């Protein structure tokens, strides 16, 4: 299982890639593996807003529904519509093609409590 060092992570199993004021968000390798085959995704509209620690969408495997929690607050600059038609990409490439939304972050402070790859890995070891 991979946890790229250049990403930040949350305890809700999302990853964040920060580039200036833009945060790209997806779910981690651990999350996709726990879910199993992802078959359905709901994402917010472009131009909408998301709130830190609040649900911004849903992923469903054959068996279960899971909320997606936003790691940051801000406005949705871009949505990856391709994964709505091909949700299996989330299993195949969680950190690459399966990014979910890009958020224009309002407050840089939002990023300060995100976990590093090491911290996240330690967290999921403890959670198991």
């Amino acid at each position: 299982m991979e946890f790229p060092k250049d990403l930040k992570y949350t305890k809700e199993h999302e990853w964040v890639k920060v580039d200036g004021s833009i945060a790209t968000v997806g779910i981690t390798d651990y999350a996709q593996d726990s879910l199993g085959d992802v078959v359905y995704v709901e994402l917010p509209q472009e131009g909408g807003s998301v709130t830190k620690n609040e649900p911004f969408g849903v992923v469903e495997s054959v068996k279960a529904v899971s909320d997606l929690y936003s790691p940051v607050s801000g406005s949705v600059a871009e949505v990856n519509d391709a994964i709505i038609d091909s949700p299996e990409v989330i299993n195949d490439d969680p950190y690459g093609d399966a990014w979910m939304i890009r958020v224009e972050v309002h407050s840089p402070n939002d990023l300060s409590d995100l976990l590093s790859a090491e911290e996240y890995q330690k967290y999921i070891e403890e959670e198991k």
Partner: protein
Amino acid sequence: MPVQYSGVIDEHLAVRGACGLFDVSHMGEVEVSGKGALKAVQRLMTNDIERVVDGQCQYTLLCYPDGGVVDDCIVYRFNSERFLFCVNASNTEKASEWIKANSSGALVEDLSPEYAQLALQGPKSVEVLRPLLDIDPSEIKHFHFVMGELSGSIEAIVSRTGYTGEDGFEIYLPVADAEAVWDALMDSGRQYGIKPIGLGARDTLRLEMGYPLYGHELSEEITPIEAGLKKYVRFGRGFIGEDVLQKQANEGVKKTLVGFKMKDPGIPRTGYEIYIGGKAAGKVTSGTLSPSLNAGIGMGFIDSALKGPEIEVMIRNRAAKAMTAKPPFYQSELQTKKAAV
């Protein structure tokens, strides 16, 4: 039994396209034997075991006097003095006690700890089983069983039954032999692409067929008539619960079990509300994404006065359109064959 091995969709498609092996040893087995066995069994069952011959099995419900379902099970008829009920894991204790309490004149034994059960399911099942069994498995007719020998010396009950809608077998064998037979079946099936199957695919496979699952479509509060299982109820025999079921069959029921397929995106799930023409009409009892159709399917109870075919399933406060449809949602090779006969 784990939720999944290689993945629910992968396992599901293996059973539909080739073959899958399930360890369903959690299922319960209750034997009723002795001179009074036939009479006791007939009083317990909604179906009629006198309509089948020795060596045949039958799907039935067991009901309380109020028509609520104790359990749904398959009854194996060895002869008129020996029957074996295969009951749901979570109901084993309850069902075996119910059978005991209503079988005066017969001996009732819960043999669950002694039996392991493997289910071999899929169009390649006959080929996979053939090298292991002392009898040609293609000779076993649908819903019949034999006492066979596996791998030369292991005695087992082998029935042509299953919970997937595919051709296949359910094998009851001593617990101590289960691992060896599992390995032998996996070896025999390798050339056909056999896969081990978990609970997740067991559920999607049965849902595509519209088979009920106790705790979802059946319960102590639901009768077989409400669940649309009238063809497994044979009236005029004096079985437990008959009066209530007869009345429901004559006068109709307030709620009806329907199957449905989603038209809008979204996956129905247990507990989601169903609306018809803007009115609250009922609830989803089971739902999933159908791996064969790649669409949401489900079952649920609706108010009998409100008829589809178009219904709405409330998915996270969004009304998603669906059409009621009589299962099966997927036509297996086995069903195509049966329809042609």
